């Protein structure tokens, strides 16, 4: 089936989005949009701004939304574009502190530090590669779904994934060697 049609959702889940209470839509999808923006931009204030703008645009385009799946796709696409625009405005890259969970045990485990290191390395990746990795690993989208979301070719997405993973592997290996 065509990826576009597949993403619009099945007839069974078709909804009239403009009839669903907006609070419910926000409740279902705001976490996803916020999280994509926070992982990408590394700043909770900017992430909230991006989420607000994405939902503002959604409120103006509700009549075009055909299903729940379409809504999630639409929001991811808008969030990704807004994040990249925001990044280009500020050119800031820093480690998202808000994403760091508090360690529960008294001592910080090696596993915790490694996850933290991965987050920091992802934050240092070029913007398109970073967004591709976020959509692949946070949102668990397949490469064709990522290509559709970002409006780019499947080959380009596969190449970004390969490059991104290779960079992470190389840098993680390098830091392990140093340690």
């Amino acid at each position, binding site marked *: 089936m065509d990826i576009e049609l597949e993403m619009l959702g099945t007839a069974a889940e078709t909804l009239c989005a403009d009839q669903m209470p*907006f*609070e419910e839509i*926000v*409740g279902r999808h*705001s*976490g*996803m949009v*916020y*999280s994509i923006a*926070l*992982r990408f931009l590394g700043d*909770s204030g900017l992430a*909230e701004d991006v*989420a*607000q703008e994405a*939902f*503002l645009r959604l*409120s*103006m385009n509700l009549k075009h939304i055909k299903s729940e799946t379409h809504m999630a796709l639409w929001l991811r696409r808008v969030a990704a574009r807004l994040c990249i625009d925001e990044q280009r405005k500020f050119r800031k890259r820093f480690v*998202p502190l*808000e*994403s760091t969970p508090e360690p529960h045990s008294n001592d910080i485990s090696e596993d915790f530090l*490694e*996850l*933290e290191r*991965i*987050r920091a390395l*992802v934050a240092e990746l070029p913007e398109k590669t970073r967004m591709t*990795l*976020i959509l692949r*690993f*946070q949102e*668990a989208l397949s490469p064709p779904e990522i290509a559709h979301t970002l409006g780019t070719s499947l080959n380009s997405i596969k190449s970004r994934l390969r490059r991104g*993973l290779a960079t*992470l*592997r190389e840098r*993680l290996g390098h830091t392990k060697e140093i340690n």
Partner: protein
Amino acid sequence: MTDNMENKIHRALQRVPPPPGFEERLLAAVRSKGPKTTLSKKYAWRLALAAGLVLAISIPYIHAHRKRRAEEAKAQLMLALRITSQKLNYVLERAMHEARVNSNPSPAEDTQ
């Protein structure tokens, strides 16, 4: 090795829960900007179009009306000037006639 690495990236990039009050702030922002902006933009556009149409239609009429008023005023001024001129001519003729009469007394008066 690769699976382990990808699994770690999955764990590192789990969704982050939004801070407390996030949804309320988001809804408030959308409510304050959203519908109003949409409506005002929509109506502003229509209003601007209507105003443009009214101006486009009425400007030639306004121009013609002003021209007609100016021509009427001009005609009235010309009439007033003509009347004034006639009055002045009349007064001048009378004055000249009086002067002529005073400088040439009638023969009947001379013989007496």
